[in-house]
């Protein structure tokens, strides 16, 4: 049974949980969203700052403030670490890959080149009740990024 638990609580996850990266809310940002997991009450407030880097729209910053379990906290940290500095299109591809992994019920092999520390969440996919925890900040990020892009288009 400890073995089962260990698939869920990988060392990498517990590390990110105890020492989260990019935590806190920072300026500047184009969009801020607040997402809630209605079932358990976990919450995240997340800001996205996009900017042109060599003509390519890129993720300049992701900052967040969240309350939640080890899985939801760690996934916010991993998310920020993965997408900051990447072109938006590439970040979106990472998002899609992470989503596929989480919804795969434990059958999907994660690609370490793309997901880096994110591969530690492979075990979470086998605990349906926890998939929502892992996805909370990812969904918030996608939402905020979409809003930022709309904003910039409109503001165009």
């Amino acid at each position, binding site marked *: 049974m400890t073995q089962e638990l260990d698939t869920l609580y990988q060392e990498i996850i517990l590390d990110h949980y105890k020492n989260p990266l990019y935590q806190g809310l920072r300026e500047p940002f184009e969009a801020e969203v607040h997402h*809630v997991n*209605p*079932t358990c*009450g976990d*919450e995240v407030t997340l800001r996205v700052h996009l900017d042109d880097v060599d003509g390519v729209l890129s993720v300049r910053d992701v900052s967040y403030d969240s309350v939640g379990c080890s899985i939801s906290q760690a996934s916010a940290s991993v998310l920020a670490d993965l997408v900051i500095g990447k072109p938006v299109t590439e970040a979106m591809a990472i998002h899609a890959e992470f989503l596929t992994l989480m919804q795969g019920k434990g059958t999907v092999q994660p690609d370490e080149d793309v997901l880096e520390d994110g591969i530690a969440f492979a075990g979470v996919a086998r*605990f*349906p*009740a*926890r998939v929502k925890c892992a996805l909370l900040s990812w969904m918030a990020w996608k939402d905020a990024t979409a809003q930022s892009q709309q904003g910039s288009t409109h503001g165009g």
Partner: protein
Amino acid sequence: MTTQTTTTGLLPGLLPELEVIRADFPILERTLAGGLPLVYLDSANTSQKPQCVIDAMVDHLEHHNANVARAMHQLGAESSEAFEAARDRVAAFIKAPSRDEVIFTKNASEALNLVANTLMWATGDLALGKGDEVVITEMEHHSNIVPWQLLTQRTGATLRWFGLTEEGRLDLSNIDDLITERTKVVSLTWVSNMLGTINPVAEIAARAHEVGALVVVDASQAVPQLPVDVVASGADVLVFTGHKVVGPTGIGVLWGKREVLDQLPPFLGGGEMIETVRMERSTYAGIPHKFEAGTPPIVEAVGLGAAVDYLDHVGMDAIHAHEQAITGYALQGLATVPGLRVLGPLDVTGRGGAISFELDGVHPHDIAQVLDSRGVAVRAGHHCARPAHARFGVQSSTRMSSYLYTTPGEIDALVEALAYTRSYFKVG
């Protein structure tokens, strides 16, 4: 008496393995007072349940019972998975584009009330007020009448009705007078529970959509009998009830297009329908949870999932053909009873398996009573369709209704019992 293989052989469309199907339904083995076999011709009222539905419910209660969504433990995960799998199966059964568009209610009546009730508080396009109109039909079940009466009374909108032809079909001659720019909602039954009529819902929906009206389809009698594709039906919202599709009581289904459901305000408050609750104000979850306040009908969903699987396994096309065969045979048989008048179409095409009738000189209660003394179970009364009865100048009627387990022999038993009724009451 329950089956006559000779007759069965003669009716095209009958389910080929009718005896095997009947063996799936434990209640059909029951005998009644006096040792008589049960001839159950009241399936439009409620259907009987196959063993697999009962077993699925028992297995859930004995091995997987837990509350859903909220529970993090293994039983909770199993129960949630069973519950949500039932949603997937129902969505597939009615060809819903998205599983989230399938809401579990307590029955069809609640589903219809949910729509009328939330429209009361809708804003934007969907808001109703004085000068707006809701159109229903004279053949509706009370559950698709009373909610609209309440809504129109409370909003000051006007309720209008499609009339019926002598034959018991919708009178569409004045459709352009009825469905106009003022029309906000058109709500109608797909198959009448009294007259048996199958209505051209897609055609009416198309007209309603031209004027921007919302189309609500009561498919309580359609889903049990017809292959249903919610998108092809033209409905924006479509409802049915578990206990008429060989599932348990305590569960109904509301399917609606996401855009519509997203626009409607919440119905009941509490439980899983919330996003956050603060003392000042609450925000609500997305569909389907937004409309599922409180602990949902969990074991009932499990039963309903097994029920639609069962129907799928037999095949809705085959079930429809069977109903047509039995209905045609019954219409023929009833025509041989002197003084009997069928209310509704006499032609089996465009008609479902409920047949309501009058018998000269004997009140429907008395008919049902005499039939019951012969083991034949039918319904007598207004079948929750009083306006349709009033339209035909009658106060009540007797109704026989068949389903996938009905045999031609049972129809023979009905016809024979009707002859006996006439002699018992000394008519003719």
